[in-house]
């Protein structure tokens, strides 16, 4: 028999966790600093560089990126090319670091952090089902991760469009690639970060250890970003959608596997 979710209990766990995390500067500052640098400072600098200088000649660089994109940039002035290339193209996959990092850090705190703070046993003694507790912990990481990602993107769009207006004379963000990244790939990546952390947190004694173990998950994304920037990978719309789908499959597989092992009996055995 499967009863409905106890949303009061789920919300209580989420409120407690988010409230506690928000008071931990060591967790919050890096979590907000990276999105700030990536989504506010970088588009600002690029926009200003495009406004006040002619910018580097990207002619040679265009030869190394996918034709589809190169064709879009070739007939643009050099200053527009820089803005379009960085803000419209390179930043899109790099942006994925935000949901990944935020969800991973929060999940490490939500799962391994309970052991580290020695609060897990008292939590297990409460009348909340294993399933509701797991869902609460997932949402504790997922909801803020998406809030930071989407909030960060809105800021990014504002900064990029405003600062680059004298160069672009139009609103150029969001592009369709950005829309796919934001609405499809970013939630998948946040879930992937969660799935990995659920797995590693079961073995890690502290959230720091979980973060180190889970750090491995960030590598494929960096490879993707580097590949993107050097034209090794063609992340146009269909590929982005496909990559998103693949990440969803892996992420959901990890989460489901994690859920199966998320039982009081297993957790209490490791206390």
């Amino acid at each position, binding site marked *: 028999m499967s009863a409905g979710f106890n949303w*009061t*209990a789920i*919300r*209580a*766990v989420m*409120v*407690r966790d988010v*409230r*506690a*995390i928000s*008071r*931990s500067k060591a967790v919050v500052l890096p979590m907000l600093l990276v999105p700030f640098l990536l989504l506010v400072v970088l588009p600002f600098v690029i926009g200003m560089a495009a406004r006040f200088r002619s910018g580097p000649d990207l002619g040679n660089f265009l030869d190394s990126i996918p034709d589809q994109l190169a064709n879009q940039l070739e007939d643009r002035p050099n200053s527009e090319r820089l803005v379009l290339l960085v803000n419209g193209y390179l930043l899109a996959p790099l942006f994925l670091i935000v949901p990944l990092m935020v969800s991973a850090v929060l999940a490490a705190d939500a799962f391994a952090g309970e052991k580290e*703070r*020695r*609060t*897990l*046993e*008292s*939590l*297990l*003694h*409460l*009348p*909340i*089902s294993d399933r509701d507790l797991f869902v609460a912990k997932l949402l504790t990481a997922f909801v803020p991760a998406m809030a930071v990602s989407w909030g960060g993107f809105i800021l990014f769009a504002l900064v990029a469009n405003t600062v680059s207006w004298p160069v672009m004379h139009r609103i150029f963000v969001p592009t369709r690639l950005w829309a796919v990244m934001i609405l499809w790939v970013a939630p998948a990546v946040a879930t992937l970060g969660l799935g990995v952390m659920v797995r590693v947190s079961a073995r890690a004694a502290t959230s720091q250890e979980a973060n180190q173990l889970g750090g491995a998950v960030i590598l494929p994304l960096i490879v993707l970003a580097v590949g993107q920037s050097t034209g090794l990978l063609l992340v146009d719309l269909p590929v982005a959608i496909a990559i998103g789908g693949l990440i969803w499959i892996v992420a959901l597989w990890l989460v489901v596997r994690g859920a199966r092992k998320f039982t*009081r*009996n297993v957790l*209490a*055995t490791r206390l």
Partner: protein
Amino acid sequence: MPAVSPVISTDGLTRSFSTGIALDGLSFDARAGEVVALLGPNGAGKTTTVRLLNGILRPDAGRASVLGFDPETDGEEVRRRTGVLTENAGLDDRLTALENLEFTGRIRGMSAAEARRRSRELLERFMISDRADHPVQGFSTGQRKRVALARALLHDPDVLFLDEPTSGLDPAGTREVIDLIGTLAGEHGRTVVLCTHFLAEAGGLAQRVAVLHRGRLRAFGHPRALAEQLLPGLPVLVELAAAADDRLVAAVESTDGVLSAAAAPAGLRMSVVDRDVVPRVVATLVSKEIPVYAAVPEPPTLEDVYFEIQDRLAADPHWQLP
């Protein structure tokens, strides 16, 4: 008198971990309003018992019943009705005392207002209301224990599990917590299971004690009944002007009802079958014109019983009180 079904009962409860067997065939019970102490050194299986009884761990074998529910299948129902003070207070340092309690109240189905009202009430009762809005981070161990105890009682549980409630406390804090537990135990017929290796607190609070050793129950019963079985006879210290000589010891020993006698620094120490023997011994001594300053019965304490059990276990690791 009608038989009262126990609030807690276990039958052959067994649980192993990768490190070995933690609990081996535990069978015991606790009645409504009773304080039962689980005694034993670290690793005896006390905490494992609490976790099994609350459905946090699943047994490898055996069964348990708490308030009519099987913790293995109805763990949530059990946890709804029990309160647990874990050895580590288990409070989130980043939250205030009030927030820690309110969170528990919300999980237990209270409205936000009810959780807040009840939390403040309990913090007031445990004399920590002045720190209610402070983060727990700066709290002393005693203050943490009091907040954790308030949390365990937030929903007025029928059964209260206290796992090492005085560990880490200074003597004053220990006294304070023991007094609190004594008060709580008497309330509304609440059953208390007290896990401890501090014998003094168990002796003062528990109606029955269960002595665990390496996961097995070695003795279970009222401390006095255990003492009668393990340490027959009533020890009595007879204070005289000086240590008794051999002739006097022999005279006392020959008195009807005296089991044994030996010289003590200022008199003699004897073991008698019951209190009624004491006046006879005193009369014998007085008839010999030996001044008797006092005759003080010294019934065995829980500590005496416990260490007798440990001595027997040292001699035979398989020993168990029949």
